[in-house]
């Protein structure tokens, strides 16, 4: 099949891996962060880590919106969902994210009208079909997902649908990466940039990485060879002492992004002054809220959500894993008190969460490393 065979070819993968090995300085340790949870998933699913020299370490970044959502925002969603007049809609993964007193699935079991949707447009359809109810969509995601919320709100406004609102938890990718680069406890050499976020925002927003921090960045696709080629491109930059943003994913990502989508985002959203990220704390201008023109659709205003802060469970070390300070199995409760079936922390919920990916695909290679390192 076109695009599949050529991006999963074992022979080419071994050749690219050999190229990476040839550029590796045996006396140096390389730390490369994959920002996106989807890349984390590919790395474990296809055993990319096992193809790399020991000196090249991949560090998982904060690129899973479910995983970085603080518990207080889950609790506030639940509080809205429990209102009798509300039909609460959200993506499937959101249903299992633990709040301080359970998750949306449990609240649904207790009788709240919570419905899983595939698209915010489905939530808008539910609003059209239920004019006597209030339909709320729990919006979450990076710049890839935000355009679908923006477009839905533009349609809602155009159609004059008044019983629809959005609880907005959209976040942006650049500020947390900057926060990580400012963090003193993490030394990174290079970044694998998120492929589909870049479909929307393009490659230009990453130019601060080489310009301000001297770190190369390669925007990468999601097939195994995409990842390997991106690592090779980063290793070449490091070897040649170049430092720039490169686009490995040219078959999908344009350098300037999707201008129509960016225009839509600019109309519907504005930046929040600050937003809380699980594990990273408050980060300035790192999330979106509805603009004044769309205030009538803002569930935070409609239901006067108080903006509560809830601390994570003490045993949970999601924050350290999110920052790349700990590997998932180094968390005290990994695979014991916290599993994909009964997640304690958000990183175990989403299939793209670093802990869930490690639990499902990565434990064998970790055990191998552990045994080998003794």
């Amino acid at each position: 099949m076109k695009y599949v065979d050529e991006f999963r070819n074992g022979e080419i993968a071994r050749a690219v891996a050999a190229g990476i090995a040839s550029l590796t300085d045996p006396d140096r340790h390389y730390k490369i962060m994959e920002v996106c949870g989807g890349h984390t998933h590919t790395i474990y699913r296809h055993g990319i880590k096992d193809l790399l020299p020991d000196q090249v370490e991949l560090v998982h970044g904060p690129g899973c919106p479910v995983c970085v959502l603080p518990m207080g925002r889950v609790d506030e969603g639940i509080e809205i969902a429990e209102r009798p007049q509300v039909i609460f809609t959200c993506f499937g993964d959101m249903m299992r994210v633990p709040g301080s007193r359970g998750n949306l699935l449990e609240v649904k079991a207790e009788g709240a009208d919570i419905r899983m949707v595939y698209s915010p447009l489905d939530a808008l359809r539910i609003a059209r079909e239920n004019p006597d109810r209030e339909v709320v969509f729990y919006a979450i995601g990076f710049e890839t997902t935000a355009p679908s919320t923006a477009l839905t709100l533009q349609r809602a406004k155009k159609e004059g649908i008044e019983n629809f609102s959005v609880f907005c938890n959209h976040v942006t990718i650049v500020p947390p990466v900057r926060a990580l680069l400012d963090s003193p406890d993490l030394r990174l050499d290079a970044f694998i940039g998120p492929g589909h976020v870049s479909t929307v925002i393009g490659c230009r927003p990453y130019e601060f990485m080489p310009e301000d921090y001297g770190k190369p960045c390669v925007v990468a696709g999601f097939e195994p060879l995409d990842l390997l080629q991106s690592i090779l491109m980063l290793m070449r930059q490091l070897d040649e002492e170049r430092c720039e943003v490169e686009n490995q994913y040219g078959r999908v990502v344009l350098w300037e992004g999707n201008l129509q989508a960016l225009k839509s985002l600019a109309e519907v959203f504005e930046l929040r002054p600050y937003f809380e990220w699980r594990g990273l704390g408050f980060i300035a201008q790192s999330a979106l809220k509805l603009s004044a023109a769309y205030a009538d659709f803002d569930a935070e205003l409609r239901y006067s959500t108080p903006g509560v802060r809830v601390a994570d469970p003490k045993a949970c070390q999601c924050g350290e894993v999110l920052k790349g300070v700990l590997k998932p199995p180094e968390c005290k409760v990994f695979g014991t008190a916290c599993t994909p079936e009964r997640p304690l922390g958000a990183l175990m919920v989403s299939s793209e969460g670093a802990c869930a990916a490690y639990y499902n695909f990565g434990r064998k290679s970790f055990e191998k490393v552990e045994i080998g390192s003794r």
Partner: protein
Amino acid sequence: MREAESMLPGYCTLDHDGCVTCSDAGIPVRVVSVDGYDALCEDAAGNRAEIAVELVEPVGVGEVLLTHGGVAIGRVEAEA
């Protein structure tokens, strides 16, 4: 591996998109027909869905779009 997972440019299809909240879940689909701002699209596994196409207009039948949450956000082979 399921045939449905052997997809470009990631492993996602309309009925198997991993975690839609995660911004990596881009699903490539081919346009079957266009009706105003909506297009009937089909993934490589044969699943069909109506996709909003305002953000990638104009689109034509046969084009391959990248979709996320029921909305087209880009084109595949953008630089081809």
